[in-house]
């Protein structure tokens, strides 16, 4: 058995403690959380979270069912099963050691459609969005120049096309 990576969207009610419950479920089944993003959905009071987790494939379905059982969890989607798009945002501060380097860095950034969001004498901060591959490629390119620090949001994901697998009717009407 091997550890496999999964991108999972968990739609939750905005209640204190719900993330703790989700996190402890993953932990109990030996899943490691690589990244986690949480924010409001289109429906007030409801948040979408995206977890990137690694763990045994065999226990994933169990974990999914256990998550679904939590009272404040409304929906669970495993994006490895569904056709989905996912994106991530990164802020990365790169050292600028010479005027030549500055030109070269900016050139590469352009190729990656990375935006400059801060300029200093010896550093540039870029904002990069895209999928994980793009993030990693950009990081690789910047390594030679010197990465001062970087932060990533973790992935967010949504099913493709017209699928409304994640759509939420209003909370009140569902309770009726």
């Amino acid at each position, binding site marked *: 058995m091997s550890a496999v990576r999964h991108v999972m969207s968990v739609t939750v009610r905005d209640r*204190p*403690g719900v993330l*703790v419950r989700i996190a*402890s479920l993953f932990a109990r089944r030996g899943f490691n959380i690589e990244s986690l993003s949480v924010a409001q959905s289109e429906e007030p009071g409801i948040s979408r979270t995206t977890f990137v987790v690694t763990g045994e494939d065999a226990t994933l379905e169990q974990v999914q069912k256990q998550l679904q059982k939590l*009272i404040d969890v409304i929906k669970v989607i495993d994006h490895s099963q569904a056709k989905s798009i996912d994106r991530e945002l990164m802020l990365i501060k790169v050292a600028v050691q010479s005027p030549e380097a500055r030109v070269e860095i900016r050139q590469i950034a352009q190729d990656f459609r990375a935006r400059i969001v801060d300029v200093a004498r010896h550093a540039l901060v870029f904002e990069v969005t895209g999928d994980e591959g793009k993030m990693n490629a950009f990081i690789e390119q910047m390594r030679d120049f010197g990465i001062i620090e970087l932060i990533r949001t973790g992935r967010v994901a949504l099913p493709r096309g017209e699928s409304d697998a994640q759509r939420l009717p209003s*909370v*009140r009407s569902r*309770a009726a």
Partner: protein
Amino acid sequence: MNGAEALLKALERQGVDLVFGHPGGAILPVYDALYDSPIKHVLVRHEQAGAHAADAYYRASGRVGVCFATSGPGATNLVTGLATAQMDSSAVVAVTGNVASSLIGTDAFQEADVYGITGPVTKHNYLIKNVEDIPRVVAEAFHIAATGRPGPVLIDVPKDIQQAEFRGSFEVEIDLPGYRPTVVGHARQVRKAAEAIRAAERPVMMVGGGGQVASEEVLAFARKTGIPVITTLMGIGAFPAGERQALGMPGMHGTVTANRAITHCDLILGAGLRFDDRVTGKISRFAPNATVVHIDIDPAEISKLVKAHVPVVGDLRDVLPRLGEELEPLAIDAWWEQIEAWKGMYPERYKKDKPLVSQEVIQLLREASGGDVVVTTEVGQHQMFAARLFPTTRPRSFITSGGLGTMGFGLPAAVGAAFARHDETVVCVAGDGSVQMNIQELATVYKHQLPIVIAILNNGVLGMVRQWQEMFSAERYSEIYLADSNPDFAKLAEAYGIESYNIFDRETARELVPQALARKKPVLLNFFVYEAEKVFPMIPAGAGVDEMMLGDQEPDEVTADGPEVTA
């Protein structure tokens, strides 16, 4: 009206008329309101006992059990009780006081993160932040506790919320978009299940704790189809013990017949059970030839441990009648012949050359009561003997900590059961170790003069641990000896005002058991039983259901493998 009064009113509206609890500083406003409330309060002497009593109250009656505790130590004392209820799917609503909202998170006196601590041992929990939320939270708590797969729900109420002026409404809407248990089984799955059962030559039905609410449906289904029925520890009474179709309990200390049937069957119809490891033994050796049809209201239980070929998510009360309708009586005579042969070959047996042994005490209790009592148990050898020799014929009448195996459950459970089933006698089958874990409840038993017969099978040891040490640790008995420092239980009970007897031989036992059962008031019987008795059959941990050690269940003339299966 303040928050505390609103809380009690909300409980009343849920039909609550009885609460088990223990007061303290952070729940004082609730206790003050209780002073004028029609709700009756039973003062337990330890919060754990309050939780167990509430749990057993549900199990014995089907009505949600309620318990109160104060903040900090009061609330942490509930944890074992909540975990016990959670593991055995018992509907409990626990209310805890907490320090004032402004003090939460400051390590205030008697503050504990009760919301955080109890999350993993409850079906759901709440920390009330706004006094107007009380009615909705109480309504949701009862709804969550009692529907779907039942379980405990905790409501933590800070003291300032209890004291705050309440101006809200009691007409509340439950607002739980993430909680919609599937009750009605999918028609296609029911049909598939029927097809599989029809095709089987050697089917067995296994009924678990879920069957306690569906005993009529279980009985009707079994009667119509003629299928053999195994009841797990949690399922005892969901199908009447002693019926021809009943094969008894499966698993680690199950009957030979039930375990043989599991090994040789070609279909298992699992109904309201979760295939616990004490039932399955080593999974790869569990029912190796069987198609598994699994009906459960909790989809997370299906294919968790035993792969279900035909899963049916739904309430047994919905699914079983529909499944029964699709089926004719099963033509399984050859299979029944085989099962009867096993039954005949492996009757319950035990040594009679000792002055008194556990099994005969339990059999005496069963005979004297006609099986028509509520039984609660502690945890250990006596529990397994009770499950095999004192299974009840009615549902909700055998109350034991199955999933968590909580020593200290039985005595407070007897209190809860006695309140749930007013005019019935409750027998608490206890061990000398376990009973000491909540012995203080003798006070509650005495105070309310509950018709409880506490039968201590006093073997002077932590018997179940001793058994494992004898069998698997080369008789290296480590810290299991109690006899040198056990109290004189009869004297102890007497100190609490409870009638009690020390019993050393079978003649006295025969005389006193029927008398005690007829008393309709508390009696403690302290039976001194043979110390080295072991529970057989036994499947060693990690072994397969087919690898039973028979011990004193060994038939005289037959090999351990039993006869060839002819079906």
